């Protein structure tokens, strides 16, 4: 393995605790090492440039069945934006839902090296892994969804945490999944009948359980197992005016629960794309931001982490396992609607959406996403995301960084809104002068997400021993710059190393890398009841046999297995 020395860059790294000082970063055998340990390194001159660890995305929809529905049913999303093949790069298409090839390359161009697929329907796990396999460069894992799963509903109806945990462990292994994802708990099962669960106490039809019981039970099962990541939730009532109370109710379900994990995380609940869950008012007419109420709660409760789901004001494609929400959306915008309900497990929907700066609600949504970040007290617990592609494509992360780092850029955007004054009235952003620095950006995009995922032993920083994922950006924080310079620089890393392999050199992709797929293998005590229930459900209700369900190893050509021992 080659040795590298990245010399004289301005280094921002919360793990080492270095805030833009000039330092050298050494790489040897895929890992960061002390500079004294490299003998004959290739030297990268980073003088005048910014150096950060590889980015970590805790929540994006980048691989699997609904993503591919989004690709295949939107040919117009690829019109005139295709990038031809050249050099090591294969052809790349799609704007809001890029092909797997473009997904890998474009994340790398932004300096990201790890991306988690946020919702994997277990029955479609094989598909998700096929796409992950064909996404170059990135390390990836996928979160199977549990919040509407019949096993979970039946066990938690009777508070059977141990059985739930045993089932979770079995399903993580069967699907090669990474974490416990919950989407609109109970609501998507209700959608099997065209219904929904609109708050945490709305009972799930036929199953005699509430979303609150599901969420609390899955947090407890997650901690019973001590998984690397916490339960990761998209709460009920997404996208509706006045939903912030549901969000706060959901947060409160974590109260009093502490993490029981040896993977270094502090939270027991990660709530995702909180922008979509921070709405006040009771109609689109008096729709307003409740970001302060939401972030106050997060600021004062250290067992919660969130990601933003920031709106980028683009034409995009929404996609979620929240089936009833997508139906609601297509009723609003009358655009094409795809839906897939998945037997015994989950559902999903896909609808194109245009976040127009000329529409008041869209502009308010944009403000809310940024408010959450700017009002956050602990950037180690609030992560940058667009819930790609729901609030906007991930390729806009550098633009969000610009908005977070520059009040001038925010004001330009606010002033261009068609309903500027009404938007200002309904939000708080115009009064916020905070400008994040690159250290805080590194917390929100590197160290924080890595820690929340339980992966701070390999990702998120530049400390010796960590995997050598590092980006060099052509950006000098000590020279004057225009807001757009931030976006330009962070859209195109000058150099990128992924696990010690240089994948970008002089802004050009030079290698397809050495991608890995992460999954969690949790060992539990033998549980004959759960295995009997599994056999029974496959025999009677599934349409595939149990023996054809598990994803076999060859779908993960380069796996990275995290072993968890929950036998007791």
């Amino acid at each position, binding site marked *: 393995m080659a040795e590298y020395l990245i010399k004289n860059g301005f280094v921002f790294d919360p793990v080492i605790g270095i805030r833009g000082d000039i330092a050298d970063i050494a790489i040897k055998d895929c890992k960061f090492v002390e500079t004294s340990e490299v003998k004959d390194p290739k030297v990268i001159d980073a003088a005048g440039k910014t150096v950060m660890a590889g980015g970590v995305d805790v929540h994006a929809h980048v691989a699997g069945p609904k993503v591919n529905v989004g690709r295949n049913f939107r040919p117009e999303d690829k019109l005139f934006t295709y990038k031809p093949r050249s050099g090591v790069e294969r052809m790349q298409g799609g704007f809001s839902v890029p092909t797997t090839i473009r997904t890998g390359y474009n994340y790398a161009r932004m300096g990201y090296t790890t991306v988690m697929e946020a919702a994997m329907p277990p029955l479609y796990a094989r598909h998700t892994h096929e796409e992950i396999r064909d996404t170059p460069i990135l390390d990836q894992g996928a979160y199977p969804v549990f919040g509407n799963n019949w096993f979970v509903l039946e066990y938690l109806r009777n508070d059977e945490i141990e059985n739930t945990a045993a089932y979770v462990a079995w399903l993580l292994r069967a699907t090669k999944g990474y974490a416990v994802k919950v989407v609109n708990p109970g609501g998507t099962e209700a959608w099997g009948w065209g219904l929904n669960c609109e708050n945490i106490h709305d009972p799930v039809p036929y199953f005699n359980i509430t979303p609150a019981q599901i969420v609390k039970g899955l947090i407890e099962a997650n901690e019973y197992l001590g998984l690397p990541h916490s339960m990761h939730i998209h709460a009920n009532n997404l996208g509706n005016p006045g939903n912030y109370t549901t969000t706060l109710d959901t947060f409160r379900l974590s109260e009093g629960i502490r993490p029981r994990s040896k993977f270094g995380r502090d939270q027991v609940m990660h709530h995702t794309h909180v922008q979509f869950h921070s709405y006040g008012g009771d109609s689109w007419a008096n729709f307003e931001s409740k970001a302060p109420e939401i972030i106050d709660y997060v600021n004062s409760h250290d067992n919660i982490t969130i990601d933003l789901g920031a709106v980028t004001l683009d034409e995009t494609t929404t996609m979620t396992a929240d089936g009833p929400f997508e*139906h609601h959306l297509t009723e609003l915008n009358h655009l094409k609607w*795809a839906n897939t309900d998945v037997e015994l497990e989950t559902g999903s929907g896909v609808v194109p959406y245009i976040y127009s700066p000329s529409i008041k609600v869209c502009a308010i949504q944009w403000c809310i996403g940024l408010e959450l970040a700017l009002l956050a007290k602990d950037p180690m617990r609030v992560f940058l995301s667009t819930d790609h592609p729901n609030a906007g494509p991930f390729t806009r992360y550098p633009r969000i960084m610009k908005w977070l780092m520059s009040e001038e850029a925010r004001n330009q955007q606010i002033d261009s809104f068609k309903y500027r004054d009404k938007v200002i009235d309904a939000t708080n952003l115009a009064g916020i002068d905070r400008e994040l620095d690159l250290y805080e950006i590194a917390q929100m995009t590197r160290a924080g997400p890595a820690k929340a995922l339980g992966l701070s032993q390999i990702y998120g920083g530049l400390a010796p021993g960590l995997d050598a994922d590092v980006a060099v950006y052509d950006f000098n924080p000590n020279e004057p710059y225009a807001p757009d310079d931030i976006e330009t620089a962070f859209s195109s890393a000058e150099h990128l190393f992924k696990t010690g392999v240089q994948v970008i050199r002089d802004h050009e992709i030079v290698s397809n890398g050495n991608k890995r797929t992460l999954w969690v293998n949790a060992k539990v005590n033998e549980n004959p009841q759960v295995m009997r229930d599994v056999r029974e459900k496959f025999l009677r209700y599934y*349409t595939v046999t149990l023996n*054809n369900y598990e994803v076999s190893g060859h779908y993960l050509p380069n796996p990275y297995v995290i072993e968890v021992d929950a036998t007791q």
Partner: protein
Amino acid sequence: MSRTVTDVICPFCGTLCDDIEVVVSDDGRKLHEVYNACAIGAEKFLHSQAKDRITRPRMRQDDGSWKEITYDEAIDYTARILVNAKKPLMYGWSSTNCEAQAIGSEIGEVVGAVVDNTATVCHGTSLIAVQDIGIPSCTLGEVKNRADRILFWGCNPAHAHPRHMSRYSIFPRGFFTGKGHTARKVIVVDPRPTDTANVADIHLQVEQGRDYELFDAFRVAFKGEQLPDFVAGIPKEKIYEAAEMLKSGRFVIIFFGMGVTQSLGKNHNIDAAIAVTRDLNEYTKAAIMPMRGHYNVTGSGQVWGWLFGFPYAVDLSRGFARYNPGETTANDLLRRDEVDAVLVIASDPGAHFPFSSVRKIYELPSVAIDPHETPTTEVCKVHVPVAFVGVEVGGCAYRMDNVPIETRKVVEPPDGMMTDEEFLRRVLERIKELQGV
């Protein structure tokens, strides 16, 4: 002695039954018996054992006879016709695994081909409709566990998907459907009283080619608006009755097939069918699903979806991907003389394309990769026999509801035979040699 392999996946139709049992010899070289499969599926497994099977590539000679050639010669020929062409067509892909499809996609990229799959003569028009209006759908287990209203429109599962009705749609007892078929209402729309129509509560014998009008009439009926006395040969009272039967269900599923995708209107018929489904979701829960034909035509659309962003008819000739059925679809390309070489794999356009297109294949440099002897192999210059996917080699396939299932190898192919995947991998290597990269 023999042994039984269970949980075998049937590589015939999009129903992708995965409960087949196959009895093979102890050494795994002979396949003796097949259980649980339908007549067609059983035949597919058994045919792999045919004594007169072609096991080596062959090339057509000037005098019209075949000459056996080596796999190396076949690889070289295939690579050369693709490299020498300005715009080759690589067609088929539906009866092979996703692994082979992925390599084929890369070949297409490298040589600037148009890749198209059998959806082009099957559910391609459904895919166009989905792009125009979307598709509210579900997995087949949702149908089994919830559906109490079943509408088959322009499809005849009794013949084309023989186990569909018993495994998924009309007869099974599921979680919320413990009474099986007795609690389900079945409507069939077809210009013929098919064997499927015989088990229906209502058969609407639509005037052939007037499905679009009848779908529209359903939508008018849902809204309580007035209909003409007859639409598509059906009296309006029957349309109102059928519309009410659908609205009164708790979970409606519409299955549709070639009767609507291939008749006048094509994508519009499906567009209107999906609109009917959307409408029904105002009143109850409804889903719709195409009855996909080849067992892995769906997978081919998925692989190209994630690699290129389009499910079929993908033109890679200019180094990037373009898509427009009517231009980049196999029959239009052949009819219009837009391509100058043809590779056919895992399908039989010779039997299933209009003859005017078949003759174009005959006139071009061409290779057919197929375990069978077919009308396609008859008109191509080179025939490359390969192992049967799902019988002699495993690999991933996607069911009609897009559920991916890994097919199993149950028996050894004849000695020395290549798989699709191996052959294509070697072709790709040879192409890179010829291109000097």
